């Protein structure tokens, strides 16, 4: 059963890669050259998926002010990865369990003690992260730890790629099908409750999607940097547009572009791919900060300058 599913997944992956390559062939030689290699093709597909899905979710992270929560969950998946490695499970599953447990734990401390959310997060995620480091130092080589912490998108294998695609599909499907619930919960949770929506279910559902996406992104950008992909594209789009569907579209586009450009540059200059992807995303943010039509710094300087010269 699992084998059949995996085989099916690999067929889909191959088809997607073939489609991607058909597009890449159209590009000039120096650009398309690196993608002759199988590991680059798999890396590209992973990066596109992760960039797009993180981009979509980052809008909700920005609007709900959950950046710190994203950071917390991403660190908290480390012990899960380590335990899964010990037991020989796909590390996806272990990461998901500890990530979800930590977010529930944060909610519990927040609700039942006087400790505020930021401290609850700092407490839980450092503890989980420390546990992960201790376990890993016992069982694995330091290269392995480095890959989990910083990602290794060029080393992505088929099973991990299939899982990443599935996680992405689930997240995108949920965001599309439950758009109304998520909109109302993000904009005005009190109204959502007055209209009989189960805000608790929506809350934990969103956290679950966040965990799923973080786990799916581990191989691409790694634990330390995944939060950048969950904040930067959304923040960039937030500066540019004024409607949620548009913000989601722009943010997903920026996520995909950052992933693709970052992957290419990291190959050309032979530097860490996770870091390069995040730097490209940050570059997009700086561009938006300077040139956004309404909120850009240039526009503000210009209006101030005009006001001064008019006097």
């Amino acid at each position, binding site marked *: 059963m699992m084998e059949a599913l995996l085989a099916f997944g690999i067929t889909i992956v191959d088809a997607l890669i073939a489609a991607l390559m058909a597009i890449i062939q159209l590009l000039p030689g120096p650009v398309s050259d690196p993608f002759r290699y199988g590991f680059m093709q798999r890396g590209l597909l992973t990066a596109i998926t992760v960039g797009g899905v993180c981009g979509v979710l980052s809008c909700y992270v920005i*609007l709900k002010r959950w950046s710190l929560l994203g950071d917390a969950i991403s660190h908290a998946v480390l012990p899960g990865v380590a335990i899964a490695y010990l037991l020989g499970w796909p590390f996806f599953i272990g990461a998901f369990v500890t990530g979800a447990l930590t977010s529930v734990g944060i909610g519990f401390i927040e609700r039942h003690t006087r400790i505020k959310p930021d401290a609850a997060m700092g407490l839980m995620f450092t503890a989980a992260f420390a546990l992960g480091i201790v376990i890993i130092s016992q069982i694995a080589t330091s290269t392995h730890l480095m890959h989990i912490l910083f990602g290794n998108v060029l080393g992505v294998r088929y099973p991990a790629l299939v899982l990443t695609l599935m996680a992405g599909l689930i997240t995108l499907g949920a965001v*599309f*099908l439950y*758009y*109304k*619930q998520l*909109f*109302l919960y*993000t*904009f*005005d*949770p*009190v*109204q959502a*409750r*007055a*209209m*009989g*929506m189960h805000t608790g279910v929506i809350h934990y559902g969103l956290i679950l999607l966040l965990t799923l996406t973080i786990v799916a992104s581990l191989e691409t950008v790694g634990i330390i940097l995944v939060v950048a992909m969950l904040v930067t594209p959304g923040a960039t789009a*937030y500066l540019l*547009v*004024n*409607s*949620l*569907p*548009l*913000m989601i579209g722009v943010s997903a586009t920026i996520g995909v572009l950052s992933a693709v450009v970052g992957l290419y540059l990291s190959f050309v200059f032979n530097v860490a791919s996770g870091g390069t992807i995040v730097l490209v995303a940050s570059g997009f943010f700086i561009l938006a900060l300077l040139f956004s039509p309404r909120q850009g710094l240039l526009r503000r300087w210009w209006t101030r300058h005009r006001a001064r010269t008019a006097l």
Partner: protein
Amino acid sequence: MDATAAQLAVSIRDLSAAYDDVPVLADVDLDIPRGQLVTFVGPNGAGKSTLFKVLVGIVSPRSGTVQILGGEAERARVRGDIAYMPQQEQIDWDFPASVRDVVMTARYTRMITEGGPRRFLPTRFAAPHHHTAVAAALADVDMTPMAERAIGALSGGQQKRTLLARVLAQDAAILLLDEPLTGVDRDSERLIMQVLQRERDRGRTVITVTHDLASARTHADHVVLLNRSVVASGPRDEMLTDEMLTRTATARWMSSQDTSRAADAASGHGTKESSR
């Protein structure tokens, strides 16, 4: 019991509510008739907002029962029978949405419950009567020309009218409004009151919370005097007498600070400042 309960908008028995271990409301028994403009009046910390939150469903009562329109409160919420207007400060006005987007949210539960497979599609594809309701609500509050504007670009009065349009678009039997007249100019105030009176005349029950005794005096039909419990509930002119207001201000469980604020409220001075 059921026959009379069905005549009531809200029927509360033996209700108590608390935050953590601090009791806020106790022994609340309250019947609110349908088709009236009802105002909750009481000093700060009297539990007016908490009672509101119980009706909205974000605070669960510690004990007691709440019936809405003669049935279970949660059923009324899911049917979309309770529309809620928050104070402006509770809304994130930087949210990337237009005025129409915000008013459209009032139709969401109905779209979800009656939509069939269409409920999963963007609101653009929702049944025409949802769009009609939104357009009518926007027209009611004079916001039609600003329907496509980003909510971040609205003035205070326009924000209030947007939230009021959202309440109207829901087509609910009960309208709950938290301080509907705070921080609006004269014109907006007149418009809001006209709309609320019209909704009342259509048989809807409009319940407001206010710190402003003057507006309760001119606008309410029915007043509920609250201080940790219901002090009295009845027609406006019987409730807003000096004697009744003093009784409300000095009701049990009051700290000295509360009493002085309540005295302010009873004399009609300094009520707005104490709301912050």
